[in-house]
């Protein structure tokens, strides 16, 4: 990929106590590229993302960002103190540099204008994810970092949410680094899959990873098949500029 690199983590190593959480992990996200982290629970995916965001310091390795990189972060879930009354509008206004991208524009993009005056504690899981996405967009991000964006969203909402994320990525040309378990929904739009289990088991384009023995060992053949089927069926969606691309299998 010849596009410029947005963020690069090199040879990351982390131990919590005696437990080795990450070992020799390197990840790169380029402009406009979608990188998806997959792996079993406790594999260190969230830790890796938090390191790349600068929230956790790794014991080994380093993270380099492009100068002035603007990141929009969507955390896994948001806990709001019950003692803290706050409306969706106020929550969005709290974002730093909130003035840069008009809130109205962001609201329209994620379609939550009707939620503005609701209390943050009174909205549903799916609505909350959209609000978090809106908050990330207030940063006019060049890189979107999403930690299981569809968590707590019902099945029909999940596809819609990923569609929305894809729309946003296309419109803003931003890179995406995401953790997701919803392989069948995200693989078609993913450029690079990284299969993580403390170390990088395998990585590459979805169709390559799906036949990788270490991937099969981790996820089993059934999941792997669904991955292969979906990536094949949606191959033509891959191009970022909107052109339909030839299927890479032919």
């Amino acid at each position, binding site marked *: 990929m010849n596009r410029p690199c947005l963020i690069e983590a090199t040879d990351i190593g982390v131990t919590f106590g005696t437990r080795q959480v990450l070992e020799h992990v390197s990840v790169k996200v380029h402009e406009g590229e979608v990188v998806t982290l997959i792996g079993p629970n406790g594999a260190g995916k969230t830790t890796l993302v938090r390191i790349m*965001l600068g*929230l956790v310091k790794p014991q080994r390795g380093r993270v380099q960002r492009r100068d002035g990189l603007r990141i929009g972060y969507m955390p896994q879930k948001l806990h709001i*103190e019950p003692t*803290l*009354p706050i409306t969706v509008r*106020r929550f969005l206004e709290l*974002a*730093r540099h909130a003035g840069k991208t008009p809130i109205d524009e962001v609201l329209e993009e994620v379609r939550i204008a009707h939620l503005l005056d609701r209390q943050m*504690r*009174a909205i549903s899981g799916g609505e909350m994810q959209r609000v978090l996405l809106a908050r990330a967009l207030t940063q006019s991000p060049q890189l979107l970092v999403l930690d299981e964006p569809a968590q707590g969203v019902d099945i029909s909402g999940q596809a819609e949410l990923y569609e929305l994320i894809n729309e946003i990525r296309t419109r803003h040309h931003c890179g995406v680094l995401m953790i997701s378990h919803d392989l069948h929904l995200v693989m078609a739009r993913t450029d690079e899959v990284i299969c993580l289990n403390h170390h990088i088991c395998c990585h590459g384009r979805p169709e390559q990873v799906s036949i990788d023995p270490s991937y099969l060992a981790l996820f089993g053949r059934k999941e792997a098949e669904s991955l292969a089927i979906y990536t094949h069926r949606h191959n033509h969606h891959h191009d970022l500029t909107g052109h339909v691309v030839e299927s890479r299998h032919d």
Partner: protein
Amino acid sequence: MTDFILRALAAGLLIATISGLLGSFVVWRRMSYFGDTLAHSSLLGIALGILLDINLQLALIASALLFAGMLLLLQRNKSVATDTLLGILSHSTLAFGLLILALSDTVQVNLTGYLFGDLLTVSNTDILWILACSVLTSIVLLAFWNGFLAITVHEELARVEGVAVERLKALLVMLIALLIAVSMKIVGVLLITALLIIPPAAARKLAHTPEQMALGASVIGCVAVSAGLLMSWEWDTPAGPSVVVSACGVFLVLTLVQSLRGDEAQ
């Protein structure tokens, strides 16, 4: 009414106003035990002030800021759970303070005054201290309100967005330490955190935004101070406890009102 009651009212209203604003953060950030610890450790500050023969108000402020800084540092290296750490510091500094006071027989200190406060003996100098502290706190709060709120709602989001989280946290803690140090004489070591917590908790019942809650807490605090002083004037009750009892009364009334209306504000 005589001068002393007017001075008491002025001091009390100023403190209640600032306590409402800062207390809301104490409630949102679950720092009530933190406030307690600072209050208890201030007795050590008084003891050291007497021992070293320096201005007591200065000694109080210096020691509160010092302890706040120490707590911040200790909290960061997480080797002991925060509540345990606070418990150890809170009680050992209190014990050290009492010990030093008992051993230094040169000066007799009115301990009860510091433990329970004495609103009715507030001097003009005290009022100046409180006024200076209130002005400073208001300016800092106005300047950094959004930042304080952002790190309170979601620290990590704020950090990713480039907010100087650690600096704001330290600033907020220092403001709280300052408030505790200057208002110690008014409500006393044992009751100071009540003024930080009860009015915001009461205001929560009616508020829809953080600002409504913070300003509401200030108003409720002022009502409690006025009612407490009236109580003290009419029935000769101790002023500090009367203020806290009044605040508690407002809290109970608002809880009742809320449950009668159904959970609207939630």
